[in-house]
């Protein structure tokens, strides 16, 4: 297995761990953190392909910079929504955020 395969496997492991956290955890903050972990795994793929891909270029690194920026915006808005919800329901348990389903 080449180095590229090793990096892609590591990214797959991190993505699956993050997916497991999103699916099973009940604390909304841990769910947000797991989403950040999944985004990081994808960034690792982009940077690995920018060095070991067929045509190495900086486009992968620039894409990963943009996705990091979007992830930071997502985290800020996510925490703001979480705090607004907490003020209303006094809990961070995602099972109790079910107004839309009722």
């Amino acid at each position, binding site marked *: *297995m*080449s*180095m590229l*395969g090793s*990096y*892609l*496997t590591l990214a797959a*492991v*991190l993505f*699956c*761990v*993050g*997916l*497991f956290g999103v*699916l*099973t*955890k009940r604390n909304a*903050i*841990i769910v*947000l*953190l*797991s989403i*950040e*972990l999944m985004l*990081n795994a994808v*960034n690792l793929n982009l*940077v*690995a392909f*920018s*060095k*070991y891909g*067929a045509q*190495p*270029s*900086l486009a992968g*690194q*620039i894409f*990963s*910079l*943009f996705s*990091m*920026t*979007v992830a*930071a*915006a*997502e*985290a*800020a*808005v996510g*925490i*703001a*929504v*979480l*705090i*607004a919800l*907490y*003020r209303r329901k*006094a809990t*961070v*348990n995602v099972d109790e955020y079910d107004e839309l389903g009722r």
Partner: protein
Amino acid sequence: MDWNIDFTGEFFAFFLLAVCAIAGAVLAINFTKVVHTALSLAFTFVSLAGLYILLQAEFVAFVQVLLYVGAVTILMIFGIMMTKHQSEGREPGRPLLETLAAIGCLCLFGILFYAIRSASFPAPEAALPEDNVASIGMLLYSAYAIPFELVSVLLTVAFIGAVALAKREEEQP
């Protein structure tokens, strides 16, 4: 079994950092206290920054430390401080849901791993330029100027939106 791995110094550095990253992620999922989870994920983010340096992406590594370890983790810790977590670790477990999620994640990983193993990647044709940071700066302000400006607009919108969402609502007279 032939794993077809050449044991160079780069591979050892990759192996160490990968073990750190996976250990941080798995521990983060296993911890019961939320603060421990956040700190463990910060460790994972630092390991990923090390991997970016191995991949000759120094600027991305720097931004990773600045943005993820410095901003996102601290933001999450602020979120933890402003909410109550007294019932943590005392909820009853959900073995059926956790088993199903674990099986699904393992299946996804199996498919990905099989695809990675069976794909043939052509060898890189050229090497990356030496002065990455200067080249990234040139590209950001020439070829990627419009996405760059759009991202700055997005950040401003997210900033204003976060302030507006988290602001305490005024009492109606």
